[in-house]
């Protein structure tokens, strides 16, 4: 009964992966039928490209920044949604929407919300006299604002997933523990930070590691909101690989960029397996 799993891995994981390695050492281009081995040439030219360096930097800002936002926001949400209250079911459902709705739809919604002319956010800020008419910033048009917007929209999308994981983690802690802390004299903050947070660490690391993978390998939000612009200022590794490799026809360069993701993802995968193992043991 192993055959389907092996076949699946060979066809859909190993095949493309080996093909990427093969392309990365060649001069493959779309429409070109002849391949030549070019050694490390692709890697050398990528490392010298300023766009690549920006993309690497952005990938890290994007990943680390969004994970911080996600963990803080989802911890607060998990605390708020844990105890029963009227309308909790409805709120939990609404909270899940960004995750269950297709990301393309959500991102297009945000594209309009952040549009340079039609932005509802700008309109509200103008109405509140924060900005003069037509004086609101171009959310997606200025490099720093653009990467911040992309980061926040991506966080918005991951928060429900992380919240669900953290909620499950909180429910798994016996009620006696926070009660004992209350009797021992700990208030809300002490109970949260000294008792519950450390106990939640394994489950939080699962949420973070998943979040890192979802963010580091994802280009949907970047692609829909800014397509990497302005001037490559929001380009991340996957979107750069797509832009160069598919849209720019330079398969070899795209493959080489993609391979730069591999070592980091291997480390994360290793950490995930370790955390999962530890959670099983204790």
């Amino acid at each position, binding site marked *: 009964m192993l055959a389907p799993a092996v076949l699946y891995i060979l066809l859909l994981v190993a095949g493309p992966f080996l093909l990427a390695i093969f392309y990365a050492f060649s001069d493959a281009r779309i429409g070109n039928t002849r391949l030549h081995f070019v050694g490390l040439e692709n890697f050398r030219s990528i490392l010298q490209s300023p766009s690549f360096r920006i993309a690497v930097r952005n990938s890290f800002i994007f990943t680390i920044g969004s994970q911080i936002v996600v963990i803080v926001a989802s911890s607060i949400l998990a605390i708020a949604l844990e105890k029963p209250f009227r309308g909790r079911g409805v709120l939990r459902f609404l909270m899940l929407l960004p995750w269950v709705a297709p990301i393309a739809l959500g991102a297009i919604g945000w594209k309009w919300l952040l549009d340079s002319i039609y932005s509802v956010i700008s309109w509200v800020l103008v109405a509140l006299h924060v900005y003069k008419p037509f004086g609101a910033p171009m959310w997606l048009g200025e490099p720093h604002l653009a990467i911040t917007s992309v980061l926040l929209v991506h966080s918005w999308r991951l928060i429900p997933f992380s919240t669900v994981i953290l909620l499950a983690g909180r429910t798994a802690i016996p009620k006696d523990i926070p009660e004992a802390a209350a009797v021992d*004299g700990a208030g809300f903050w002490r109970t949260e930070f000294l008792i519950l947070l450390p106990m939640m660490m394994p489950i939080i690391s699962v949420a973070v590691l998943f979040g890192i993978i979802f963010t580091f390998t994802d280009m949907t939000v970047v692609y829909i909101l800014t397509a990497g612009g302005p001037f490559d200022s929001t380009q991340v590794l996957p979107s750069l690989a797509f832009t160069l490799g598919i849209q720019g026809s330079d398969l070899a360069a795209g493959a080489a960029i993609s391979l730069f993701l591999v070592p980091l993802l291997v480390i994360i995968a290793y950490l995930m397996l370790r955390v999962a193992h530890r959670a099983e043991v204790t």
Partner: protein
Amino acid sequence: MAVVETRDLTKVFKGEGLGAVNNVNLETREGEFLVFLGPSGSGKTTLLRMIAGLEAPTSGDILIGGRVVNDLSPRERRIAMVFQSYALYPHLSVYKNIAFPLKAQKVKKELHKEKVEWAAALLGIGALLERKPRELSGGERQRVALARAIVREPAVFLLDEPLSNLDAKLRASAREELERFHRRVGTTTIYVTHDQVEAMAMGDRVLVLNKGVVHQLGTPAEVYDNPADTFVATFLGSPPMNLAGVAELIVGFRPEHLRPTASVTGEALSFRLRVENIEYLGAEWIVSGTVVGGRLGGKKVFSRLTSAQGLALEGTYDFAVPQRELKFFDHSTEKRVAPRAVSLQ
């Protein structure tokens, strides 16, 4: 001044008609060991949790040290609680578990070490301070939980079935240890259990609860020898008190008072018993049988004897209960009433 006092304390959980705890009035005495005893669902844990401040009362007052504490959080009540599961913090060492209440109550850090070591020594866990809870046995965990409770010298100890997670052998020694611990620290203690042996053995007084209502509050001897109603009479004792309806009354007698007529002296109530089962329990025998003839005819009763010699299965024998050992209960209220003469013939 009572350390803990409740006045008409009631708790009704949403969606349940009958209260989990109904109009409970009690006063602890300084330094006493008070046991809440009742079957599961009797409201004893809810009562304890209300005193701890973990559950808000529906009505009534809780006083600790003469002060109404209804609106105070658990931390402001100067209580310490040991949970059924012990609720040790799994990520903290034994030392840090015991020090946690000190830290939470902002006791000066210099004092922590001294106090933790004092509490640990008191419970004989000085060697375990660096361990994590998961590396401890059940008995050791219980001692850590007690140390964590004693470390800040609370006004009251609340213990919620602390022995129920231990195996039978350990339970007896842990019980004895707990009694010695209480004698040494002398702190007023409220102890919740469904185990009548624990209640009888440890309690200075026992509060018997059922369905949220207090049935009796008294010393172990009082609740055993003079039960206030049929519930107390049958909940305590194993096998429980024999009860039999006679006219407007229910007559009760403990199995140890039902003996072969030959060994009963003085005024006694006698009847013929057909023996149906004989159990040998080492130190004693439990004989059960059915009364033959008379007003109790067909009633199944238990007898606890030091020897069952001369009794055989399916044999019919004369048994008797000394008149002074008979308890009488009203048929409708099931409350205890004054003794009177009855005839079983």
